[in-house]
C-alpha cells in the first residue's frame, strides 16, 4: 500500500531515492575494460566463455575504449614500462569507475619481486577489489564482480570517489 505522494498519484508513479535507482542501473550494466597483459587474461577468457558466461551479471559488454567502460579489470602483470599506459587508461575512463586487480601480479607483483615489475597496481591507481590466485579461477572473477556490485549499492551519486589518491607516477 502506497503512502504519501505515491498514494495521491495512484499506481502509475513510483518514487525512490536517486541513489537507489542509479546504483541499480550501474550494478547490472557494468562495462568492463579488460586490461589483459598475461596469464590472467586467459582465465578472463574462460569467465566470458559459455560455461561461466559473464553476461549473467550484465557485464558481457567488453569495451576496448576506456571512454566507454566503467570497470577496469587489470588481468596480469604490470611492468614499469606498462605503468604509465595503465595510468592513462584509468584517467581516460569517465567517472564513476571501479578497478579490479586480478591475480597475484596485479595485486602485489606476485612471484615477480624484481627490477621490472610493479609491486601491485595500487601503487599507480586506486583499486576496489583484489582477486587472489596465480591465476585465479574464472569463478573468482565473477565473485569480484559481485563484490563490486555490492559496493555500488552503498555509494552515492553526490560523493566523488578516490579524489585524493596519489601513486608513484603522480
Amino acid at each position, binding site marked *: 500500500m502506497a503512502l504519501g505522494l505515491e498514494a495521491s498519484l495512484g499506481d502509475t508513479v513510483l518514487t525512490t531515492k536517486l541513489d537507489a535507482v542509479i546504483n541499480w542501473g550501474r550494478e547490472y550494466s557494468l562495462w568492463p575494460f579488460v*586490461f*589483459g*597483459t*598475461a*596469464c590472467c*587474461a*586467459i*582465465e578472463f*577468457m*574462460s569467465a566470458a*566463455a*559459455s*560455461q561461466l558466461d559473464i553476461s549473467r551479471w550484465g557485464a558481457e559488454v567488453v569495451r*576496448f575504449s576506456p571512454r566507454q567502460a566503467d570497470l577496469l579489470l587489470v588481468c*596480469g*602483470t604490470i*611492468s*614499469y*614500462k*606498462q*605503468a*604509465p*599506459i*595503465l595510468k592513462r*587508461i584509468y584517467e581516460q575512463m569517465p567517472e564513476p569507475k571501479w578497478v579490479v586487480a586480478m591475480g597475484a*601480479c596485479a595485486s602485489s607483483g606476485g*612471484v*615477480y*619481486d*624484481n*627490477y*621490472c*615489475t*610493479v*609491486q601491485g597496481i595500487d601503487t599507480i591507481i586506486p583499486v576496489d577489489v583484489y582477486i587472489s590466485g*596465480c*591465476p585465479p*579461477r574464472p569463478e573468482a572473477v565473477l565473485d569480484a564482480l559481485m563484490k563490486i556490485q555490492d559496493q555500488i549499492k552503498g555509494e552515492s551519486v553526490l560523493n566523488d570517489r578516490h579524489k585524493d589518491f596519489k601513486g*608513484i*607516477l603522480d
Partner: protein
Amino acid sequence: MNTTALELIQAAFPDVPCTSSIDAVVLTVQPEQLETTLSRLKNDPTLNFGLLLDVTGVDFLEYPTPQATRFLVVYTIRNWEKNMLVEVRVPVADPAVGIPTATKFWDSANWGERETYDQYGIVFQGHPDLRRILNHWQFQGHPLRKDYAIEKGQICYESDSLEKEIKDRLASKGVNKTTMEEINTEIMYLNLGPSHPATHGAIRILTALDGETILANVNEIGYLHRGFEKTAENRTYNQVIPLTDRLNYCSALMNNIAYAKAVESWLGVEITERAKFMRVILSEFFRVQDHLVCIAANLVDMGGLTNYWYLYNEKEASYDLISRLTGARLTSSFTRIGGMYRDFYEGWEADMETHLHGIEKGVSDSLKLVLKNRIVHDRTQNVCVMPADKALSYGYTGPCLRASGVPFDLRKDNPYYHYETFDFTIPLGSKGDIYDRIMIRYEEIFQSISIIRQAMKMMPAGPVFVSDNHVALPPKAEVYKNIEGLASHFKLIFEGVKAPAGEWYDSFEAANGELGFYFVSDGSGRPYKCKVRPPCFYMMSGFHEMVEGEMIADAVINLGSINIIGGELDR
C-alpha cells in the same frame, strides 16, 4: 653428441678450439675473428648454418673459476637440414667497445643483439638500431649484470615516442617528403597498442599509413618483461619450474617439460620410460590447447565469433582433466627434474578419450565454417606472405616456419622421447601466408591427437620418477625413517639439484616453435645463468616484413596468426 658435426667444424676451423656440449659444437673465437667465422658458418655450403637461433651474453663477475674476460657473447646457430648446432662464444674485453654485429648475416641477430645490449650493456659495432628492447627507455644500467641488484626497480614516467624509428623506417622504404607530395596525401601514423583489442596482450605496433595501406611499421615489445632470467638466477633448478609455466601460458606444461628436459640432458639423467610417454602425451595435449586458443582468437579478429565458442569450449572442457591431474587449470608446474610430479590418476584414459573426441568434433565444426568460406579465403590467402628464406633469416621456427614450406620440426629432425617411433606427419604450407599458418595449426591438432592415441597404447607401467636421490626427492617413508633420506631431502630442498659447471643449450619443439634453454652452471644448485630462447620473440622481429604493403586490417589478423604470447615474448 654429434661427432660428425664436431669433425666437420673442426676441419673447417683448424685454428679454433672446438669442443662439444650435448648436441652442440662449441667454438670460442676472438672478436676480430668473429665476422669471418660467422660468414663461413653461414655461407660455406658444407656448413650452411642458416638459422641463428639466439644471441645472449654472460657476465662472469661472480663466477667461481676466473675467466679471461668478464663478459661473453654466445651465438646459437643451427643447420636445420643436417641437425647440426653450433655455439659461437666470443669473449668481450670491454663491453663499451663491444664486438662486431652479426646483423649482416642473419636478420634475427637484430633483436637478439638488442636484447643482449639491453640486458648486459654489450655494444655491437655496426648494429643498425642498437637500443633497449625489453626495458623501458628511461632505465639506467643493465639488469642482468651481476652487480645490478634484482629488486632495484626503476619507474618509467612516459612511453617512448618511436618517432625517430618510424621515420627512419619510412626513409629506408624510400618514402620521403616528395613521395608524400606525389601521392598527394599526408602519411598518417596509427598506433595499435600496447593496450588494444587487436594486440592480444601488450605489444605496440606503430604504422605509417597511406590510406589503409601500411607503408612502414615498427614494433615495440617488453611491456610484459617480468625478469624471468634474473629471477631464475636466484632460484634452485626445481624452483624455476613455476616460472616456466608463465612463459607461454597457453601451453604451460610444455614449457615445464622443455625446461626439465634441458636440465636433465646436462645432468645425464635418463628419465623412466613411463615418464617419457607421459611427457609426450601431455606435451601433445597442450600443443592442441595452444593451437585451439590461437585459431579461436585469430578467427575472432576476422569476425568469426562462432568459431571461438566451438574451439574455446573444448579447451575449457579439457581443464577438467588438467586440473584433476595437476591441481591447476593454467599453470600446472607438473614436472620435476628427474620425472613427473605424479602419475596419471585412475581412469584418465577414458577422460582423455572424451576430450580428444570433443576436440575433434569442435575442430571439425569450426573447419566446416572456415574451409569453404569465401571471406576467410579472401582475407587470408596471399596476405602477409613470409617467404622461406626470410623466415629462416628472421629465426622463425615451428608452425610459422613450416607454413613457409620449410620442413623443420625438432620432433622429426632431432627426436627425443621416442618421437621417431610415432607415426605422424609434419604439415607444410606452400606460400607462407596467413591461410597457411591457420591451416597448419588445424592439421597439427589432428596429428597431435593421433600421437596421443599411439602413445596411450604404447605407454608402459612403472615409476614416473628416477630413483637417484641426488636428483629426485626420496619417498617420504625414507625421509621420516632414516637419516640418509632425511639428509638428501634437505639438501635437495635447500641447495637444489647440483648441476656440473659448464654451459649448454637444449631445445624442445613447443607449440610455437623451438623453445630452447641456454644455461651456465657454476656447479651449485642454482643456475648461474638461464636464458630462454623464445620462439615468438623472433617471430615478432620479422612482423614488419610481413605487414608492410598490406592493409591495416591484415596486420591485425597477421598478429593473431603468428601467435604472440606476451609471457614468452618478453619473459
